[in-house]
């Protein structure tokens, strides 16, 4: 492994090194090739320039040679001419000849010269010259002379030849002509190379005879110049050549520029023609080509390099963009991911604790911005609920490289206060040689909440299981208790069959136990139905006074049995007619009132009031208050009172029978009706239950009409609230109500009114008044006013107990409390010519006498009970074991054979609904015969199903004969109709 890794590294290193090395090698090769090329070109240029210069300056040399010879030839000619002219003063012919030559050849002056360098011109000017060179020797040797001279301040070159003679008294040894160097330069036409070339005629010592260079007259010795300008070898080479009369060529740097110097002897003496030309002028073509080549190469290479660089840059940029894009994608993806998940990610510098990265979802989850978190990691720590749990720096530093540490932590959202749980894991790792802390805060909130819910559910289940166990335990006891009584008393009944008193007693007790067991079962079923959400309200119009009267009928006897004072009041003039579920309201109020009776000891007081409460909207808001001064409840129990199966644990409650479901059922019914139930209680002082419910007003309130003749009314009740309540309810009816708070005052008021001729049309007396009670008051009033005015008693108690005495005293009728105008109107109507309202009367005995019933019942025992009970009422019946048989029996029976059918619903072969449909569809007789369903199911749906199947009524099992009689009477009287009874 080690070896493989090492080779791989070396290969990678090699791969990194190779490209630059290759580039360097290639560039080196190219440079070498170029150098070789340029060297070759330079060599060629040297050869070329030498050849070129040789050609040019060879030409110039030849021209100069010719010029020199030409002048000597001229002078020779002049000598000949002068001699021929007779050696005179030169006037006339010679002078003219010279002048002509001057014109033709361009020399400046003609001189007669002696060896002392004195001169005479043809014009007679005299002077002396200082020609350079060995003038005297040359003349003496009869050698032609070419010498430089400055005449009149102008540099000139003189040509002289030996010729003796006398001119104008001047003995001369030579004749000469002089040219300005400028003229010679022009005649040589040596200004090649556009005037940049310098051309000199020098002697072997380097002294300049003449120059063609414009402005080059300052150069007096070119070799001296070269000696200073060139290196020793180069100079020596040139100087040696010139000294030895050899022509030569030099190419090198002169005045920081590449020069070509060519030198070749001219045709006189040791003089040389030397020319220095910038190489750029000599080899212009080559140089141009070279430069062009260089330029082209440079451009080409530049283009190539630029292209390479561009490509490289493009690749780098592309790669960089790609990397950037990828990074951006990843960042974006990470952002999306972090916004989607509830985990928070951070990267920290371990040394500075600086937050180098934090996922943006931190703001959503913790409530601090990424900027805040990045500013200081402690801003994050501050969001922890328990800051003690934050791991200190020292411990973090203890995390080994590539190691980690985790802990649970709860954080609170800084804005919303929401709590979240995280498992914080910190990883220490090295990224590109730099250590970092990577922190992952894994959201465990859901898990935590789930666990909590599971725990709660577990606790609830445990609690429910416990409650169920308690319930079953209670139920077991509560069921077994009456069952025990039923079984026990049944045994006793059998054994004491001959003892009618015992039979009656045992039967009564068995019935009581059975009713209690039925009530228990009904409660359990009700609770189950409510909890399963199957209960629905049966909304219909009902009479509030009738409801209150029914309640009074049920509760009063219970209260009276315990000598309890039970009163019913109304306040705020509640309406007579309401729209709502009368049955459920009745159930609620019976539960509350029953409990009040149960948990109020002997002689206690129970007050039940109904108050109309003002509210917004069209609904009628009623407040039902049941207040007792019973045993009360503890504060702890009040919290539990509405829970199923809850009963206060004390000896008193324990002694009272109950399922613990009544209040739970009451609460659920109140909730179902959209109401509120509240309880206030104090142990030993009693309890007050308040139920607020809203009802829709009835479409039409009972339109009782007051007797026209009744306009004055007297009320006597020791409770002023009752009097005021009556006054309030009678307001707007046209009846002037006066009241008295005791009997004697009432007598006086009645008497006084009668005496005034404005006797009251009706007097209403409370029965139970202190001092003179209602009966006595009535008696006294009769003595005063006579018997015309109707006197009624308003009482909560049973009228039958005092009816005889009351009538003796002159009381005409009884009216139950609480006072309702409708009830009052019904009660007083007969005394003013109206008919009494239809009131429900219990069915009279003999209703079923002689009737034939068809009973469909699959249970033999129930069938036997029903048969016997019908027989007791003088009715006969035929039993069918199922719906099919019942239908067949009806179909086979002649019309009118059966008066009514009692149909069980749950039967084998054909159920009751099917059987009813079959019978209804069979004939006209089938459509007319009353059919009542008998079922243990008393849910509203069951009643509705029965009616939908064509049945006329619903009877709950166990069958109540009074209910059967009532239902049968109603159905038989109407022929056929739908009536719901319980």
């Amino acid at each position, binding site marked *: 492994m080690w070896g493989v890794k090492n080779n791989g590294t070396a290969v990678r290193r090699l791969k990194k090194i190779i490209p630059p090395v290759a580039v360097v090698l290639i560039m080196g090769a190219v440079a070498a090739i170029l150098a070789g090329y340029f060297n070759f070109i330079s060599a060629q240029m040297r050869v070329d320039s030498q050849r070129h210069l040789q050609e040019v300056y060879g030409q110039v040399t030849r021209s100069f040679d010719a010029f020199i010879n030409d002048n000597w030839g001229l002078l020779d000619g002049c000598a000949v001419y002068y001699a021929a002219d007779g050696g005179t003063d030169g006037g006339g012919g010679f002078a003219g000849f010279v002048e002509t030559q001057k014109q033709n050849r361009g020399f400046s002056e003609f001189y007669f010269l002696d060896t002392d360098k004195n001169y005479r011109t043809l014009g007679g000017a005299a002077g002396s010259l200082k020609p350079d060179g060995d003038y005297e020797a040359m003349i003496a040797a009869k050698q032609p002379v070419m010498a430089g001279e*400055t005449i009149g*301040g*102008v540099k000139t070159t003189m040509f002289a030849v030996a010729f003796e003679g006398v001119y104008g008294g001047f003995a001369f040894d030579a004749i000469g002509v002089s040219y300005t160097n400028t003229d010679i330069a022009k005649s040589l036409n040596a200004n090649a190379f556009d005037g940049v070339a310098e051309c000199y005629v020098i002697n072997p010592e*380097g002294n300049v005879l003449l120059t063609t260079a414009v402005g080059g*007259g*300052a*150069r007096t*010795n070119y070799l*001296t110049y070269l000696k200073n300008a060139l290196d020793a070898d180069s100079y020596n080479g040139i100087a040696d050549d010139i000294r030895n009369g050899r022509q030569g060529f030099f190419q090198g740097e002169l005045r920081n520029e590449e020069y070509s110097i060519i030198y070749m002897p001219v045709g006189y003496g040791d003089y040389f023609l030397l020319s220095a030309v910038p190489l750029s002028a000599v080899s212009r073509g080559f140089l141009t080509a070279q430069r062009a080549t260089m330029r082209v190469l440079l451009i080409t290479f530049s283009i190539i390099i630029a292209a390479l660089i561009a490509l490289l840059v493009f690749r780098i940029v592309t790669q960089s963009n790609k990397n950037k894009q990828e990074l951006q994608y990843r960042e974006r993806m990470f952002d999306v991911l972090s916004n989607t998940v509830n985990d928070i990610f951070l990267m920290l510098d371990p040394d500075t604790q600086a937050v180098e990265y934090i996922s943006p979802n931190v703001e959503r989850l913790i409530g601090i911005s990424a900027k805040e978190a990045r500013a200081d990691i402690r801003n994050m720590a501050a969001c922890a609920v328990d800051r003690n749990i934050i791991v200190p720096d020292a411990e973090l530093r203890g995390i080994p490289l590539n190691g980690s540490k985790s802990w649970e932590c709860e954080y609170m959202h800084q804005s919303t206060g929401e709590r979240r749980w995280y498992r914080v894991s910190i990883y220490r790792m090295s990224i590109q040689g730099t250590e970092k802390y990577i922190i992952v805060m894994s959201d465990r909130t859901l898990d935590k909440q789930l666990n909590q819910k599971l725990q709660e559910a577990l606790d609830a289940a445990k609690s429910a299981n416990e409650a169920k166990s308690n319930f079953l335990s209670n139920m077991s006891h509560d069921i077994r208790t009456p069952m025990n009584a039923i079984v026990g008393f049944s045994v006793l009944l059998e054994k004491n069959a001959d003892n009618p008193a015992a039979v009656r007693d045992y039967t009564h007790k068995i019935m009581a136990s059975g009713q209690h067991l039925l009530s228990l079962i009904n409660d359990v079923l009700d609770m189950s139905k409510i909890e399963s959400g199957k209960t629905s309200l049966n909304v219909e119009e009902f009479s509030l006074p009738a409801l209150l009267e029914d309640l009074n009928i049920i509760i009063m006897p219970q209260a009276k049995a315990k000598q309890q004072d039970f009163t019913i009041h109304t306040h705020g003039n509640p309406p007579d007619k309401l729209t709502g579920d009368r049955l459920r309201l009745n159930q609620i109020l019976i539960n509350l009132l029953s409990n009040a009776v149960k948990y109020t000891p002997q002689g206690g007081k129970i007050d039940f009031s109904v108050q109309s409460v003002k509210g917004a909207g069209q609904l009628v808001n009623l407040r039902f208050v049941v207040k007792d001064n019973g045993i009360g409840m503890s504060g702890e129990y009040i919290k539990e009172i509405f829970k199923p199966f809850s009963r206060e644990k004390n000896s008193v409650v324990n002694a009272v029978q109950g399922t613990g479901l009544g209040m739970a059922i009451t609460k659920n019914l109140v909730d179902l009706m959209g109401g509120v139930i509240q309880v206030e209680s104090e142990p030993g002082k009693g309890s007050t239950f308040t139920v607020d419910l809203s009802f829709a007003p009835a479409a039409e309130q009972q339109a009782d009409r007051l007797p026209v003749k009744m306009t004055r009314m007297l009320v006597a009740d020791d409770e002023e609230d009752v009097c005021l309540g009556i006054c309030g309810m009678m307001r707007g009816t046209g009846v002037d109500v006066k009241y008295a708070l005791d009997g004697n005052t009432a007598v006086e008021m009645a008497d006084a009114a009668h005496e005034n001729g404005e006797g009251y049309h009706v007097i209403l007396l409370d029965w139970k008044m202190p001092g003179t009670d209602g009966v006595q008051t009535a008696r006294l009033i009769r003595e005063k006013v006579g018997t015309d005015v109707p006197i009624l008693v308003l009482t909560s108690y049973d009228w039958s107990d005092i009816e005889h005495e009351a009538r003796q005293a002159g009381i005409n009728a009884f009216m139950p409390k609480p006072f309702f105008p409708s009830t009052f109107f019904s009660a007083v109507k007969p005394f003013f010519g109206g008919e009494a309202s239809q009131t429900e009367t219990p069915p009279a005995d003999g209703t079923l006498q002689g009737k034939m019933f068809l009973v469909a019942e699959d249970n033999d025992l129930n069938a036997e009970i029903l048969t016997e009970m019908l027989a007791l009422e003088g009715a006969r019946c035929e039993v069918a074991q199922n719906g099919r048989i019942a239908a067949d029996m009806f179909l086979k029976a002649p019309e009118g054979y059966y008066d009514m059918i009692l149909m069980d619903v749950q039967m084998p072969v054909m159920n009751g609904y099917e059987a009813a449909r079959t019978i209804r569809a069979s004939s006209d007789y089938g459509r007319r015969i009353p059919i009542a369903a008998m079922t243990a199911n008393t849910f509203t749906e069951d009643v509705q199903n029965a009616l939908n199947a064509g049945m006329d009524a619903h009877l709950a099992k166990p069958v109540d004969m009074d209910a059967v009689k009532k239902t049968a009477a109603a159905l038989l009287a109407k022929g056929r109709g739908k009536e719901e009874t319980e």
Partner: protein
Amino acid sequence: MKKLCVALAVAMCAAVALAGCGNGDGGPSFDPSAITIMGKESDLKKNYMQRIFDLYRASGENINVMYVEDGLYEQKSLELERAGKLPDLYLHFHNADLDNLDVENNFEYLNGAEWETELTASAAKYCTDGDGNLLGLPFWESSVSGCYYNKTIFAKYGLGPVTDQADFDGLCRLLAGEGVTPVCWAADGCSWMQQFALDPVFADDAKLLEDLNASRITYAEIPGVRAMTEWIYNAAKSGWFGKNYLSTGWDGISRALSSGEAAMTFIWDTWFYTDFTPGAYGVDDFALMPVFMNTAEGGTYEGGNLNMMMVNKKGDKKEKALDFLSFCADPENYNAAFKDISTVSVFRRQTTNIQSKMVTDAAESIAAHERVSTASTKIAGYSSDKVCAVFKELLSGAITVDRCIERLDRDRLAAAHGLI
């Protein structure tokens, strides 16, 4: 009694005359019978002047020397001229203000004097007016102004003196190419270079000078002025004056030449004996060639400014005055007077003076190209100091060539009209 009064009056007049003539003592007491020579005090006190006076007196004659304070000389001259009381002999440098003295009516033309041929050509030319009238005897030290070059440096680079402007420009290029400052140009206060260049412009064309002084033309219309200005400007820009020329003054010239930093300068020969301090190079390393500033193809030299003795043609001692001139022009006398005086020869047979080899060697060239000092002496309103200042601005880049010429004209005219 009458006579006594006359004598006293004469004596008083003489005394007044003497008192009004000068504030200095002319040496011995005034001799009314002797001729009187008037000049600036500093001029008359030159040793060669004193010598000639002594020699004259020693010859048995007497001469009154009237010393006039230098700064008052011109004013005094005008006063005397207006009063008709010019002295017998009057010293003047023959510059432009001589015209204020009505030369034609007051001074004797000396053409044909026996000593005329004693004068060197340049000296004679200097003392001659535009009409060829010899106005005085130059009895003064003289010099030759030209381009003094370091022949040693020249020889080192194979260079020699040049004879035309093109060669001089080429010479400057070659020297510059060798790293030697071609010309030491002292732009800071050294005010003579421009007059050397202007001399040929106006000396060679007297009409041009006349028209200029008469304000018929201006500098701007004279090609030579522009040619000189442009040459100076371009030479400076080409680096021919070196780097520090703007700050180089009188003292810098000796340093530049003696060190070899610069190869040439435009100056006069006697400077080498009065103000040059040898260094790496000495006097013997230098030679003379004409000044080339694009105003004369063959270059130019400026001859010395000579104080000439002029004769009052109305003076009662005119003949004596003329005799004095003859005395001075005697070779024995002038050689005695100028013995060991550093001067270019004024007289042809002047042998006792110290004339520099530079001048001697260049005699032929000088003879061909020497001009009398014309610009500074003959151009009305010419101020060499002001010219120097304007050119300094030009060379520093503050003004253009055109503006420079304008300024020269402005300064000249203002000075000529007495405004400055």
